């Protein structure tokens, strides 16, 4: 007992030590504009002590601990703030301004040149679903992108013609890897669709210029697509229409860390062509078939492996009027294509580094018959890519990487065969330097080397962006871009140099939750375009000359213009619409052009209106797309002015409707889509006879196209999975 008593003072002092040295902490919490913030949480880390701020931003509480402590301020929508202090019984007054966090007040991002569709990022102009639900696009990724400013309404060739650039100047990139044959193989005067379904992708960035050093080999534009991650659950899908049938199954494994899926489809337009009158004289109606397989494995919280592989086959043939023949002779054209594409990527966070690895392989074979001549063309592309990125102190984001491409091209014309290989490599580095979240600068460089032409190029790129008010931002981009000449020139001349383009872009963007306004002015300067000699004078200009001409890098050109995009989801209740307008002034001297003129694929004015409405209660949606473009130049041998003629203006009204119904256990979507609903006359250009006495219009294959389909999706619940597994 005595002993205990002896120790009592010790106990008491210990208790007092814990309990009595109380420190009052008070102050005011505001935002950076000194506006008081209510309901901010103010507390001592790892203790109970703390309080909330009142409506004037004031707080006051008593901390019972002593010694060193961290005082934490937190509020949703603002960044946490931590102040170390010493609790010594003396009153502390701590006034704190909180910084709005990136999620509520958008951090400044570089928007010059790029239009993004994503569900994850909020500042995007489009959502992935928009790509599928845009009328007139007929479910084609590129169809929807053509309603955005910068792209031309070119109906006779596939691909994206961006800001005075040809379709060859736009590259498509899937998960960082260049895709060689993104579209179905070309058929003369008939634009082809993209091979890839829009549902494969969760994010799309359509860059109309000034893009990052991570991408090369494109003079005008890149379309960057990011594939889906793991699906939410297992499901089966089926699509049925008079045109095609498709089916697929995607399985999410029970540990929810891996998935696999496959699908197959077959398209045959026989029934369709029987109803819708066609302009071309088809011999074999287009048919195609294919399948794909994929797996995705989550290797950790931050790591994922994705694999996708697809094979497709298609065949068609038609007779084309020989315009030089006086007795109506027709040329036979037949195309059989087989295409294999496969991509494997791995992404993981290792310490502070994020590692992206990728490899892909594609093999495309076109067998073409022109009358009795047989043409075979094979393109193989194997590539590997490594990118590492990390955040350095002071808000600097660093990306470094390299890529290697092996191109193997082989072609034959009857008994004549030729082939060429290119080992193409590139290295790049880029840093984003952020200053106070209102200003960002991106500096990048890239080096490209082609073994085929034995040359390398260094390109420099700079962009800047600054916030202008709460919703506005202004960006600037400058960059040099290089592209290897197209294969058809390299076959005969391997001493050609890279073609070059310089971009200058100024952008202003105003984005709220319901309204997006985006305006951009740009200037592009082209150099080193491949030209052909002898360059014939205007009277003797022959497109598709069969001579093997000499080629040299003597061409040049420019493009300048204005892009405007306005999207509004609020003004008309339940109606979402966007308007885009493009002004383009461009001239170029390239290929066999005898002088510098506006090229055939460039209209001065292009505009689109896209309107969508969805009735949630009826689960019914309808959409409208109206596109307009002024006439484009075409070659008329009777006109002494080269490309001096203009086609009639282009008008197209697309309509679509979709109805969602629960049928049995499936979600079923019925889709009806019509292009050129009014049946406006569309002329993309003319083909002239050599003597200029006869001509034929180049236009769409039918006055209008109609698509009717039904897509079913079955979610598979886990009980079934268990049954299937046993």
């Amino acid at each position, binding site marked *: 007992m005595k002993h205990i008593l002896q*120790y009592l003072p010790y106990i008491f002092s210990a208790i007092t030590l814990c309990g009595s040295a109380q420190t009052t902490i008070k102050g005011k919490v505001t935002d950076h504009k000194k506006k008081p913030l209510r*309901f901010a949480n103010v507390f001592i880390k790892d*203790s109970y002590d703390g309080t909330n701020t009142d409506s004037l931003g004031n707080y006051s509480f008593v901390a019972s601990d002593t010694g060193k402590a961290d005082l934490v301020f937190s509020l949703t929508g603002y960044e946490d703030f931590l102040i170390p202090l010493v609790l010594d019984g003396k009153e502390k007054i701590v006034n704190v301004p909180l910084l709005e966090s990136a999620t509520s007040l958008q951090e400044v991002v570089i928007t010059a040149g790029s239009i993004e569709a994503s*569900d994850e990022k909020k500042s995007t102009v489009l959502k992935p679903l928009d790509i599928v639900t845009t009328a007139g696009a007929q479910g084609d990724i590129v169809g929807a992108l053509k309603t955005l400013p910068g792209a031309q309404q070119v109906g006779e060739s596939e691909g994206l013609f961006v800001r005075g650039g040809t379709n060859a100047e736009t590259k498509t990139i899937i998960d960082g890897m260049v895709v060689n044959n993104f579209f179905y193989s070309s058929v003369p005067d008939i634009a082809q669709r993209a091979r890839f379904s829009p549902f494969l992708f969760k994010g799309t960035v359509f860059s109309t210029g000034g893009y990052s050093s991570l991408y090369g080999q494109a003079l005008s534009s890149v379309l960057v697509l990011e594939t889906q991650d793991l699906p939410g*659950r297992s499901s089966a899908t089926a699509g049925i229409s008079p045109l095609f049938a498709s089916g697929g199954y995607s399985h999410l494994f029970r540990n929810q860390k891996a998935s696999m899926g496959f699908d197959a489809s077959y398209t045959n337009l026989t029934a369709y062509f029987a109803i819708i009158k066609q302009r071309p004289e088809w011999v074999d109606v287009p048919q195609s078939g294919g399948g794909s397989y994929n797996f995705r494995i989550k290797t950790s919280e931050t790591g994922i492996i994705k694999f996708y592989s697809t094979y497709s086959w298609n065949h068609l043939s038609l007779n084309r009027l020989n315009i030089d023949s006086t007795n109506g002779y027709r040329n036979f054209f037949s195309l059989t294509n087989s295409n294999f594409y496969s991509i494997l990527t791995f992404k993981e966070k290792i310490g502070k580094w994020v590692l992206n690895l990728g490899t892909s392989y594609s093999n495309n074979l076109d067998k073409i018959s022109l009358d009795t001549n047989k043409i075979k063309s094979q393109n193989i592309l194997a590539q590997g890519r490594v990118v590492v990125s990390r955040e350095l102190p002071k808000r600097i984001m660093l990306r470094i990487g390299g890529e290697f491409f092996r191109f193997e091209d082989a072609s034959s014309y009857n008994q004549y065969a030729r082939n060429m290989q290119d080992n193409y490599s590139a290295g790049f580095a880029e840093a984003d330097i952020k200053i106070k979240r209102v200003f960002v600068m991106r500096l990048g460089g890239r080096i490209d080397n082609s073994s085929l032409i034995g040359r390398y190029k260094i390109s420099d790129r700079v962009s800047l962006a600054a916030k202008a008010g709460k919703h506005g931002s202004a960006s600037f981009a400058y960059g040099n871009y290089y592209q290897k000449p197209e294969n058809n020139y390299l076959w005969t001349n391997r001493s050609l140099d890279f073609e070059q383009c310089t971009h200058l872009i100024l952008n202003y963007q105003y984005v709220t939750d319901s309204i997006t306004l985006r305006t951009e002015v740009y200037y592009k300067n082209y150099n080193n375009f491949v030209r052909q000699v002898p360059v014939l004078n205007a009277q003797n200009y022959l497109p598709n000359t069969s001579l093997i001409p000499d080629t040299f890098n003597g061409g040049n050109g420019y493009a300048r213009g204005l892009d405007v995009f306005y999207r509004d989801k609020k003004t008309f209740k339940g109606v979402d619409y966007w308007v885009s307008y493009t002004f383009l002034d461009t001239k170029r001297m390239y290929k066999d052009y005898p002088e510098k003129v506006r090229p055939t694929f460039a209209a001065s004015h292009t505009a689109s209106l896209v309107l969508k409405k969805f009735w949630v*209660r009826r689960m019914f949606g309808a959409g409208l797309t109206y596109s307009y473009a002024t006439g484009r130049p075409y070659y008329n041998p009777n006109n002494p002015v080269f490309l001096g003629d203009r086609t009639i203006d282009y008008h197209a009204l697309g309509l679509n409707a979709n109805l969602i119904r*629960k049928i049995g256990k499936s*979600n079923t979507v019925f889709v009806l889509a019509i292009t050129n609903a009014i049946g406006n006359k569309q002329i993309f250009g003319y083909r002239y006879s050599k003597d200029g006495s006869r001509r034929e219009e180049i236009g769409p294959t039918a006055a209008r196209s109609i698509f009717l389909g039904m897509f079913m999706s079955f979610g598979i619940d886990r009980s079934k999975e268990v049954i299937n597994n046993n």
Partner: protein
Amino acid sequence: MKKVTLLMTVFVLSLSLSAQGKKFVAGMKKNLAALDSVKKNEQYQAVANDFERIANAEKKEWLPNYYAGFCYIMLAFESPADKIDSYCDKADAFLRKADSLSPKNSEIFVLKSMAASARIGVNPMARGMQYGMESGIAIEKAISYDAKNPRAYLQKGTSAFYTPEMYGGGAKVAKPQFEKSVEAFKTFKPASEIHPNWGKARAEALLKQSEEK
């Protein structure tokens, strides 16, 4: 001597430990009373903060994280579209913490399902599919972890109730879930006075509503 010192230390420690335990329960009770008396939606933020502070001090307790998550979900449901995600991000962070402290807990998965449902509100057209699925998976897990949890059926019924009929929702589909929930509430006893014990009145009200439709 040494023994006594040791004893004393143990005594002081246990005193402070039980004091800590009492402080925890008292703090939780006070906050739960505040939660019950929330009248204006914005007050959920204050209560969320109060729970966050307890979570901050009691690193091994899942309940303060659970209730902080709950408050943020309530905030999300009543917010304009542009604020929903930031509240749900907060809620999910607390729920992840709760889940790591108490794995396979039916109550936590009920909230996970609710948070996913709340996110649909940002853009029902674009998000319905993804977050609807996520919500459905979480609620099925909640039921598999505790088939007697009345709140699991309440949430399953609620999300069906607010899903359009075309998508397989509607009052008819929801009603049996509300019935199950009301039934489960009859025998439900919370593990302690600070364990989840909400939703009975709501289940009864929604059952009535689904019968009227």
